[in-house]
């Protein structure tokens, strides 16, 4: 290899003007806006659940919806922060989804305790996981493509958070679309698969975000 001085000279000669990357907040707001448009369009095509107005008066449904939206926003911001080598010196922000996931688990636990007598299970099962995953494909692809333009030094973590962000958009869509009151079903087929999605993102992050 050439000496350090030669390398520095060569790199300096290549130093064309470069546009700095946007702030992670701007970046995540862009992703969130795109996801919001995608969600609204999808709901417009697939339709809102007919009992939505009534469900919005139920505290546990409202809490589930609210925290899921916050999870989506926090994972988007976290993924944006993780796309920078130094996490944009906002390490705590990268961890923000962890607290929200803890709150979400607590909400699901209380919703399950309040579900007395338990609502009947719907006849379908894995179809929900499959629908959410398919719905999440597009946001996942655009988030990954966008993150590849940066330089993540935490590529596994970044991949995991990016996929969770996309999956939470899918979970939001199904929550607003599907007529279903069974908390057990929702935990089993809507949210538990998030663990697998997180692991898949860990693997995909290494494949796609390593530079």
């Amino acid at each position, binding site marked *: *290899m050439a000496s350090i001085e030669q390398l*520095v000279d060569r790199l*300096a000669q290549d130093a064309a003007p*470069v546009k700095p*990357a946007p702030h992670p907040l701007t970046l995540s707001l862009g992703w969130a806006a795109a996801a919001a448009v995608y969600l609204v369009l999808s709901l417009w095509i697939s339709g809102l659940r007919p009992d939505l107005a009534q469900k919005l008066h139920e505290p546990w449904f409202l809490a589930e919806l609210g925290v899921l939206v916050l999870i989506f926003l926090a994972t988007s911001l976290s993924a944006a922060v993780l*796309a920078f080598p130094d*996490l944009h010196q906002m390490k705590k922000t990268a961890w923000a989804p962890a607290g929200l996931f803890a709150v979400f688990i607590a909400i699901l636990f209380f919703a399950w305790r309040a579900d007395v007598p338990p609502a009947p299970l719907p006849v379908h099962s894995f179809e929900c996981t499959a629908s959410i995953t398919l719905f999440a494909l597009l946001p996942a692809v655009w988030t990954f493509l966008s993150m590849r333009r*940066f330089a993540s*030094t935490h590529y596994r973590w970044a991949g995991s958070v990016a996929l969770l962000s996309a999956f939470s958009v899918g979970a939001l869509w199904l929550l607003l679309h599907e007529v279903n009151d069974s908390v057990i079903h929702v935990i089993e087929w809507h949210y538990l698969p998030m663990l697998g999605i997180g692991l898949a993102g860990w693997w995909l992050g290494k494949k796609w975000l390593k*530079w």
Partner: protein
Amino acid sequence: MADKTENLEALMKLSLNGDKRAYALLLQETARFLRPFLARRLNVESEVDDLLQEILISVHKARHTFDGNRPYRPWAFAIAKFRLQDHLRAHYADHLRHAVELSEVENDLQENVTKSGMSYESISGEVEKLPPKQAAILQMMHQEGYTAREVAEKTGMKESAVKVAAHRAYKILRKVLER
């Protein structure tokens, strides 16, 4: 020097605008403060140089992720640590690939290692017939008294590679001498 370090962020801002001189200064200063960090973690000077060059190339590739509005050093160190981890991961994976199975060497271990009826001089003729690299390694280890690590440093090889080459040479010698 203090002025230089205080102005790293300003140098990067100028570099992002295409100022080649500012960029060269920034890279030189980056190499200066990263070298001791790497030297503390790597034993061989040539590895420090190679890794430092990889890091500077990474800094160049990722320079668009720095906007000049936050401290430069944590950003550069994050890239350096990332590349160092990559390097160490590859280094240890290489060690594993070249590791010799215990079953391969256990026959050698059973022999009397404190007393040998055979001197290096008595088999030097056979040693010279070995491939040049293996012969040189055996000569350095058994005639000149260097350890495997010292041989590695002298020849620019990895210590594990020296041990493997020596082990292969022993195998060849054993076959020849048993005839």
